């Protein structure tokens, strides 16, 4: 379960401070799929970063399964991420010097998982890229890179998956296939999914939709 209580983020500007997020309260139950929708610049990625403990909040706090992220130090948060979280980024974020397979193995290797290779191969196969496992990111198309990223996100069996506009850099057909893959794997693994998008069709596939507007969050019932 993820909760955010009175969460706020401010960044300094030249002579004042800019509030990117204001008083966010949020509760996401285990196994839920939640979409965060909003215009570009509304603060979606910032919120996701705070939920993942990639950044620290200015006010309020985030808990994951009852653990207050604010109370952990950077290393504690990293360890938690390694155990509990998976990521899919808009710009893929694969390491260019690693092959597809090595990219997928990376989080498991960080955890010292001895079966990293078999699991990596397994997940690459599940995203349909087992024949490309020795290729480097620059040899793959955007859609393929994002599939590798999805395999990497699921391969560590995270309890929570955070995806920041996973289809944002892709054409609609490819984006759709990526989305199918994401939801299919999510169903199989029973992962909690937090999905940031401005694509309403994609958002509609989630159980809940939260709307972000100028740093404030509002829940809307399914229409």
């Amino acid at each position, binding site marked *: 379960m993820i909760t955010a209580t009175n969460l706020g983020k401010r960044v300094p500007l030249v002579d004042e401070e800019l509030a990117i997020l204001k008083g966010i309260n949020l509760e996401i139950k285990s196994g839920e799929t939640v979409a965060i929708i909003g215009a570009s610049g509304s603060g979606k990625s910032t919120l996701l970063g705070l939920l993942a403990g990639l950044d620290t909040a200015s006010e309020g706090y985030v808990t994951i399964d009852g653990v207050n992220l604010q109370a952990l130090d950077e290393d504690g948060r*990293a360890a938690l991420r390694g155990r509990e979280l998976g990521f899919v980024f808009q710009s893929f974020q694969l390491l260019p010097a690693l092959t597809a397979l090595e990219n997928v193995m990376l989080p498991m290797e960080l955890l010292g998982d001895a079966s990293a290779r078999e699991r990596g191969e397994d997940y690459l196969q599940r995203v349909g890229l087992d024949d490309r496992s020795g290729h480097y990111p620059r040899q793959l198309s955007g859609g393929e890179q994002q599939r590798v990223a999805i395999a990497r996100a699921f391969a560590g069996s995270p309890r929570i998956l955070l995806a920041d506009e996973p289809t944002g850099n892709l054409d609609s057909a490819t984006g759709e296939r990526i989305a199918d893959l994401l939801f299919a794997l999510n169903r199989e693994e029973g992962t909690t999914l937090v999905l940031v998008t401005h694509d309403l069709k994609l958002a509609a596939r989630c159980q809940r939709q939260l709307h972000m507007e100028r740093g404030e969050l509002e829940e809307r019932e399914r229409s």
Partner: protein
Amino acid sequence: MTLLMRMLLRDWRGGELGVLLAALVLAVTMVSGISGFAAALKGALRQESHSFLAADLAVRDSRPMPGDWVTQAEASGLKTARIMSFNSMVFAGDEGMVLASVKAVSDAYPLRGQLRLSDEPFGPLYTHTGAPPRGSVWIDPRLFSLLDIAIGDNVAVGNREFTVAASIRGEPDRSGGFLGVGPRVMMHVDDVPATGVVQPGSRVSHRRLFAGDPDAVAAFTAVLESQLNEGQRLQSIDGSQPGIGNALGRAEGFLLLAGSLAVILAGVAVALAARRYAQRHQRYVALLKSLGARSPRVRRLYAASLAFTWLVALLLGWLLALGLQYAALQAFAAQLEVAPSLFSPRPYLIGAVTALVCAVVFAWPSLGRLTMVSPLQVLRSDEPIHSAREPFDYLIGLGAVVLLMWWYSQDLKLTLAVLLGLVAVVLAGVAFALVLLRSGRSLGMQAGSVWRLALASLQRHGLGNALQLVVFAVAIMLLLLLTLLRTSLLDGWQQQLPDRAPNHFLLNIAPEEIGGVRTLLDDHGVVSERLYPMLRGRVIAVAGEALPVESEERDAPRQREANFTWSADLPEGNELVAGQWWSGSGAAEVSVEQEFAERLGMALGDRLSLQIGAAELEVTVSSLRTLDWQSFKPNFFMVFPPGLLDAYPVTYMTSFHLEPQRKEFLNTLLRSHPTITVIEVDAIMEQLRTTLTQVSAAVELVLVLVLLAGVLVLVAGVQSSSDQRLRESALLRALGAGRGHILGAVAIEFVTLGLLAGVLAVFSAEVAFWALQRFVMELDYQPSPATWLPAIIAGGALVGLLGLWSCRRVIGVPPARVLREL
């Protein structure tokens, strides 16, 4: 133009330009500064060595020389002076009478260097330039006791009476062959006719001295050479370079080398900085192109920005070089007769050209390649511009560095020796990196996770790491090489001038005086070296062939006088190069100094006819030796086995160290043994010691500067991968790696690189050092294992620390921000 300005401004703020600019400034500063300083030092050394001639150029003849030379010389702006040397009796009182070696000089003497006089026989010294006043003489300190006179008394030379005005203790052009020369009397040349001792047919040596600016001297030398007749000899400093000159000459070589290494380091720093600059500009170029800019426009943009950077670097570098030269010259200001100009154009020109070559050869390939960036990269970022041409660029770079070094040092051998080291380091580095980094994989998999992370990362960046490794190794190697050379240089000087080296020689000690002299030395607590027997002899025939007394040709063999000694063992500092030392067989043998033997046409096994006094003696050359001319020890061309020369009249010589405040002892000694000759070399040695101390300081200063340059290269090398590392680490942190984990991996990675680079550097520095010692400095090579471990450890520590420092952002900044910026 506005686009250019905006881009430059943005790059400046973004820090990309800073590194490139710093590297170029470094190149200009180091090269201009060091070469300016080296030129000044060279000038100082030339003055120093010219003072051994008392001129820049001298002509010697046994007859008076044509007066129109003086007119010609003065017309071309040269100063001239005149010297006559001859032997004559000096008389004092009723019985005082000594055969003296008279030197009559004109007012301008000496043109280079200074005389050292004192108002007491061995009183405090002061320097002087110019001839004695008419009617006065300056005399050798030992003449005071020999003639039993004091300052102010009169002496007579021929028909003329002179007042003794001072004791003469040092002349710049008194050559090293001090053995067997009569005591000095110096007078004004215009007083010579009145003495009446110089008659047609007397043995007189005339010398004409010339000095002026180097070009005029060179031109005048050419004129003179065409007018010289038989018997006239031109003397320039190259022909009379004493041992000291060698040592200082090596300092100059060292500085040139240091400057050359600075060129290499600067080149490497520029190349690294440009590479990084280009990498950071890829997206920008892709964007410009996607917005419609065509390749020529992009090329012009970057060419202009590079030209602008070069210009700014040039101005800053020149300013810094000026400061550097000023600081370095301060040390020498007191020493130089003519202070070298801080504004002589050559060093600045060299700096400008070096920076230009660096910009064109090292920076432009990376920047120029930006025009090849495809606009597609807007869509697909972080595709590195891997170019097959890159190795080719490195080769061109190496070629440029070699040409620059050559131009700069004007020394092909030195350049090739350093090149040898560079090639060794590059080849070994690439091979090393490939093998080790490849084999690391299996090793890493079993190790703990920090190690796995580090080794995986080392392997991941195989090519980049090989480059970094070579860069680190080159920097460490050059620094190590310079340190080795510096140590060898300073040690050499230290050995040459140990603190308590003998600084006085006693000659002409009769056998029956030995006991008395010993007692006197002991009573005054003066520790002397061993006594050498010494007798004067002449070589009259070699291998049955009689040598002429005077040869037609200048360097052809002719009869030569030399000092003979005997010794049971090989004298200290001598080295046998052919034949064998005697083992007490009692045969008539001799051991001859190698060059002396060559000059007289002697070979091992030749029979020689010698003349000692009126007697003749036949001996066989049984060995050849070299001498240590750098030492202030007595050296003999001809050494005989003990017993062979017992029948001939012999005197003894020895040497000892005497502090300046105990000079009075010499008066005591000469009063009781007036026939003994004292040769003082303490003043020369003191002067030499101060010079060497100052040169050492300069050498250290330059070493520190080059060290700084080396560290900057290391920084640039570490930085070259820091962008990539930063984002990788941010991603790893997002995926759950802890800070300790990442820092540990970074540390292991860089320490490993540093250690490997250290090993490579040690290896190739020894190779280059060997080549330098052997072919350039002409010294014996000795490996320096004492530096190996420290160098390797320092390499690991330094590179590791720099690596951690360059990655400090990785752990300081929340990963969200890093990921957002990318």
